[in-house]
Each structure stands twice: as structure tokens, then as C-alpha cells.
């Protein structure tokens, strides 16, 4: 290799897991030419701020649906779910079947009519229409900070991964990935981001399918996988726990996740899942870009169909990896060993790529991975620039801004957002604890959020003061809960919990966070309820029309709508199919 002749940005720095051939670079380059080309081509359609921030509300349902799912299918999800598949087995699919599908159906059928129908341009703006300015600003601020922070984390993870497996320079990766994202958002706004999410969706699906097929062939099919996983689970002292999703959920010590069915269903399946899928503007923004009400409602429902099948694509590689690792020998898979003596689960995907993908296909796998990191960044940046421009800048700094001025602000915000993301990426590299701390605080703010949307949309009596102070009560409840509980085997600290005294131990930190969510939600729900009853309604029935269930005309399907395009029918189909999957893999 002519290492010295390479530009310093890409100088090889450490021992590497993967070596790329020219054909792999050709594939990567082809993809990036298309990504930038799409932004460049659609830049001339960006005439109004609505075009830039909302895709002019013009996209068909299937594109919004793939954007909806693609924005969520970041590389952290792909790598993280494979890692969990190795750590927990089939039960990881709860994050999809319990932790996503029901909430996606709910938002499509019951909540989208208010988001889309209210003509709000963002989720915080809905809160302003429904409650008041302070609730909106609180939500907009925490959301804006969270999105640039998440985009920085994606950037950091991408650079760290490429540095670890390819030996590429960390700074170079940060610079190049932010430049590419910058170019395509700057030129094409939300449409560009959504189009790239669609590309990335198909790249991930078509790029990872051969990994699963080859892994299955190697281990002797589904039967071989189950046999090896069962043998592995015996060595872990939980026989059969890797090959069932429900059978071991009776008690938190019977399964590797360390949670029991109630905490799982109520904490993950209800509070956290509904809190994310039904209120997070990052995903809702994709549905709000749809061309009409029916398309907006169908967006999460269509997205739920691939979502329920994704475990086969993202969890199965992890299960295969741990089974192959257990099998050992020349036929097995060597996983890097982490500091604690266990396999480094985060390296499951790179290790599988290195084993099964020859040059050519390797380029595809890597392109898919990089594409999903970047669309993760882009998704956050587009949500950030919309919330900043509409909910913070236009409201507090320049209410009379012209439309052309708002596009300009959106573009400048894209640059600033990426700069802050880069700062976050470096902060994450230097001070690991600060990032964990921030994530914890976001957890406190987010856990109760769904309660005010639920009360806001389905109870006309909920008031602005109720929502705002309910949210604060929920956030404080979360912090107090965390301060009084601790996962087994941890010492009390600000980060892990128990800093106010340890009054309850949990089998895992995941169980602690699920239960924290349950408490935070309940605190916010009750707080909003009582404060609303104690305060005067601040919106008249007329103002609440289109924002609250009982005052809004039910969304009706047009007479000519075929059965498969009716949201209610789709919703029932999606839920039934998910139930069947749960029964098959119980």
C-alpha cells in the first residue's frame, strides 16, 4: 500500500479489521455522487420555506413511510440491534413488536389527524396551538438540543467505527461526513433528506440480506441456529433464553435482558415507545410531509410493515454471530474480546461483514452502513433546522420574517447545526461521561412527554398551565426515581442512580429505565390532570377544533378509497400480523 501517498486525512492509523479493494471504493464513490446529485437536482424546487422544511407537503405515502422508517434505521440501530441480538437473542425483537408497532399504529390512526389537520408546521407548534407558548418553547428547546446532540453522536460513532475497522483518520471522517450531509440538506432541504432515507432503506435491506442468508447457510439453517443458541444459553445459565421471546419473561432473572413482562409492556411498549413514535418530531416530520391527510395517516402504518420484519435483518445477524462464535473452531466466527472478557458485541456487524462479504459485496455493506450513519445525522439536522427556524427564531427573534428570509435562516441553521454536532462528536470522544449524563437528562425530559399529548388530544379540559407544570413534575419524578434506584452490581453515582439512597434494586439498567419511564409518565399524567382541573381553560372550544378528539370531525375515508388504503384496515392488519409473529416466536 502506498500509505505515504495518501492525503493525510485518510492516513492509516491502526491495525485494521477490513481492507478495501478498488471496487469497494468505486461503489462508495458511486453512492456519494448520487446522494449529492439528488440534492443538487431538487434545489430548484426549493421555492418557499414550506418546500425546504416540509417538502411542500407534497410527497406520496410510500416515500414518507420509507423516510419515516429510514430516519429511525440509523447505523446505531443496525449495529446496536445486532449487538442486542447477540446479548439477548430473539427477545430483542420486543424492541420492534412491542416497542414500535403498536405506537406506530396508534399515531397513524388516532394522532395524525391532529398533527396534519391542525396545519401546525412542527410538533412544538402543535403544542402552542393546543396549550400555550411556554409548553411549546420548553419542548422546542429540549428537542433542538437533543437533535444536534444525537447528530453529533452519529458523527462520532461513524468516525470511531471507520477508524477502528478501516484505520481511516477520525478527523477526516468527521469532516467528510458533515460536508456530504451539509451539501445535500443545504441544497434540497427535507425532501433531500427523505429521498436519501429511501435510498438508504433499500441499501440496508438489499445490502444486509446476503449477510443473513450466508450466515444461516453456514450454521446449518434455522435449526442449526437454534441448536447452537440453545447450547450457548446453557453455558450462560439460562437454558433456552436466546431462542424464545416470551417464555422467559416471567421474572427478570430468567432472561438476559433482566426485565419482567409488566415492566417490558408498560415501560417499553407503552411509555417509551408511544413517547418516541407519537411525539418525536424527527419521525412525525416525515409523515407531515405527505401530500394529503390519508397519506399522512398511512405513513406510519405502511412503515410498520417493514418494521415488523426488520428483526430478521438486524437482530438475526447478531444471533448468528453469537451462535457461530459459540460453535468456534475454523467454522466459527472470531469476535473481538472486550475489556470485561465478554465478546465485544458492538463489533458483531463488522466481524460478520469481514467474514462473509468478499470485495464487491463488502463495498455494498460498508456503503449501507455509512449511508445509515449519515441519514441519521441528516434526519436530526432537518428536524433541528425546522424547529429552530419556526419555533424559536421566528417566534422569539423575528416574527415578521419574510418567507425567503426563513429559507436563508434554515440554510444557515443547517451549517450551524452541523458545526455544533461536530463539537458534540469531539466532546463525546474526549469526555465519555458528559455524553452519558446528557443522555440521562434527556431521558428525564422525554419519559413523561407522551402524557401531555395524550391528555391534550383526548381531553379538552387539559390546560396550558397543566401541561407545562405536569411536564416539569414528570421530569422531576424521573430524576427522583433514578436517584433512589440502582441496577444490581453498580455502585451509586449520579449516572447510574441511587445518589439519594438505594431503595430499589433492578436486575438491569434497562429495567431501571423502563420503570423510571412508568413513574415519570404517571407523575406527569396526574400532575397535568390535577393542575388542569385547578386552572381555568386557556383555549375556547372554537380554538380547540381540529386539535382535540371530541371537538374534531372524524377523519373519513373518501368513498372511492380501496380497502388497502384505508388507515383503519391497515392498522388492524398490521396489529394482527404482529400478534402472529409474537405467537410464532414466543
Amino acid at each position: 500500500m502506498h500509505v505515504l501517498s495518501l492525503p493525510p486525512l485518510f492516513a492509516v492509523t491502526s491495525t485494521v479489521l477490513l481492507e478495501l479493494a478498488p471496487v469497494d471504493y468505486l461503489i462508495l464513490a458511486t453512492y456519494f455522487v448520487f446522494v449529492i446529485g439528488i440534492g443538487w437536482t431538487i434545489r430548484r424546487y426549493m421555492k418557499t420555506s414550506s418546500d425546504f422544511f416540509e417538502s411542500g407537503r407534497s410527497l406520496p405515502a410510500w416515500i414518507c413511510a420509507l423516510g419515516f422508517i429510514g430516519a429511525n434505521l440509523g447505523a446505531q440501530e443496525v449495529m446496536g440491534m445486532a449487538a442486542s441480538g447477540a446479548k439477548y437473542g430473539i427477545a430483542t425483537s420486543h424492541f420492534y413488536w412491542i416497542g414500535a408497532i403498536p405506537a406506530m399504529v396508534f399515531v397513524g390512526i388516532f394522532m395524525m389527524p391532529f398533527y396534519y389537520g391542525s396545519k401546525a408546521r412542527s410538533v412544538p407548534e402543535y403544542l402552542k396551538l393546543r396549550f400555550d407558548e411556554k409548553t411549546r418553547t420548553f419542548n422546542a428547546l429540549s428537542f433542538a438540543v437533543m437533535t444536534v446532540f444525537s447528530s453529533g453522536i452519529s458523527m462520532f460513532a461513524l468516525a470511531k467505527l471507520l477508524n477502528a475497522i478501516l484505520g481511516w483518520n477520525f478527523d477526516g471522517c468527521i469532516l467528510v461526513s458533515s460536508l456530504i450531509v451539509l451539501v445535500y440538506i443545504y441544497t434540497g432541504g427535507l425532501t433531500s433528506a427523505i429521498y436519501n432515507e429511501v435510498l438508504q432503506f433499500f441499501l440496508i435491506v438489499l445490502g444486509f440480506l446476503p449477510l443473513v442468508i450466508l450466515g444461516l447457510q453456514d450454521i446449518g439453517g434455522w435449526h442449526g441456529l437454534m441448536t447452537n443458541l440453545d447450547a450457548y444459553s446453557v453455558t450462560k445459565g439460562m437454558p433456552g433464553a436466546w431462542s424464545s421471546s416470551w417464555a422467559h419473561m416471567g421474572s427478570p432473572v430468567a432472561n438476559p435482558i433482566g426485565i419482567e413482562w409488566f415492566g417490558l409492556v408498560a415501560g417499553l411498549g407503552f411509555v417509551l415507545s408511544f413517547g418516541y413514535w407519537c411525539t418525536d418530531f424527527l419521525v412525525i416530520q416525515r409523515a407531515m410531509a405527505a401530500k394529503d391527510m390519508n397519506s399522512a395517516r398511512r405513513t406510519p402504518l405502511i412503515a410498520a410493515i417493514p418494521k415488523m420484519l426488520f428483526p430478521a435483518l438486524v437482530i438475526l445477524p447478531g444471533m448468528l454471530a453469537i451462535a457461530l462464535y459459540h460453535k468456534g473452531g475454523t467454522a466459527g466466527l472470531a469476535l473481538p474480546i472486550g475489556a470485561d472478557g465478554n465478546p465485544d458485541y458492538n463489533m458483531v456487524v463488522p466481524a460478520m461483514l469481514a467474514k462473509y462479504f468478499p470485495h464487491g459485496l463488502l463495498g455494498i455493506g460498508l456503503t449501507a452502513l455509512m449511508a445509515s450513519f449519515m441519514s441519521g445525522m441528516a434526519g436530526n439536522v432537518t428536524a433541528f433546522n425546522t424547529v429552530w427556524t419556526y419555533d424559536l427564531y421566528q417566534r422569539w427573534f423575528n416574527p415578521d420574517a419574510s418567507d425567503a428570509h426563513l429559507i436563508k435562516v434554515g440554510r444557515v441553521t443547517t451549517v450551524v447545526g452541523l458545526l455544533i454536532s461536530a463539537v458534540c462528536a469531539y466532546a463525546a470522544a474526549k469526555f465519555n461521561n458528559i455524553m452519558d449524563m446528557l443522555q440521562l437528562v434527556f431521558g428525564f425530559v422525554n419519559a413523561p412527554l407522551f402524557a401531555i399529548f395524550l391528555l391534550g388530544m383526548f381531553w379538552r379540559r387539559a390546560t396550558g398551565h397543566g401541561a407545562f407544570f405536569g411536564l416539569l413534575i414528570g421530569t422531576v419524578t424521573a430524576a427522583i426515581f433514578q436517584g433512589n434506584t440502582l441496577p444490581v452490581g453498580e455502585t451509586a453515582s449520579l449516572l447510574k442512580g441511587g445518589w439519594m439512597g438505594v431503595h430499589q434494586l433492578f436486575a438491569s439498567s434497562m429495567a431501571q429505565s423502563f420503570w423510571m419511564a412508568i413513574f415519570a409518565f404517571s407523575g406527569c399524567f396526574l400532575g397535568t390532570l390535577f393542575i388542569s382541573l385547578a386552572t381555568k381553560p386557556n383555549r375556547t372550544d372554537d380554538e380547540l377544533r381540529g386539535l382535540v378528539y371530541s371537538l374534531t370531525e372524524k377523519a373519513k375515508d373518501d368513498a372511492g378509497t380501496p380497502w388497502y388504503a384505508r388507515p383503519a384496515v391497515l392498522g388492524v392488519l398490521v396489529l394482527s400480523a404482529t400478534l402472529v409473529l409474537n405467537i410464532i416466536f414466543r
Partner: protein
Amino acid sequence: MQLDIRLPMGLLFLILGIILVAYGFVSDPAIYTAHSLGQNVNLLWGAIFALFGGVMLYLSRKKSA
């Protein structure tokens, strides 16, 4: 009228498919023994990529026609 995403998507997957198939023809068979259980996955999966790209292109043309 916005850009139909199926046009660039079809082109991208078609080109990637062609690159994979071409590489499948010229590459050393030893890499398939070493990685993909002896199967020339570039040839096979490249064809699938190209086919997917072709279908997307066809759909985008059909709509605009």
C-alpha cells in the same frame, strides 16, 4: 412536478449491480471460497441489484409516460 425518486434510485442500483456483476466475472474465485462459502455472490447479488434498479427505472418511466 418534483423529481421522481425512482429515477435516481433505479439508476444507482442498476449501476451498482453492473459493477458487482462485472467484478464477479473478473475477480479471483479464491475470494469466494474464503468468504461466501464458495458462491460467487457478486455475480448473483449484482444481478438482483440490477434487476431491482431496472424495475424502479421502469416504474418511473411508466408513470411519466
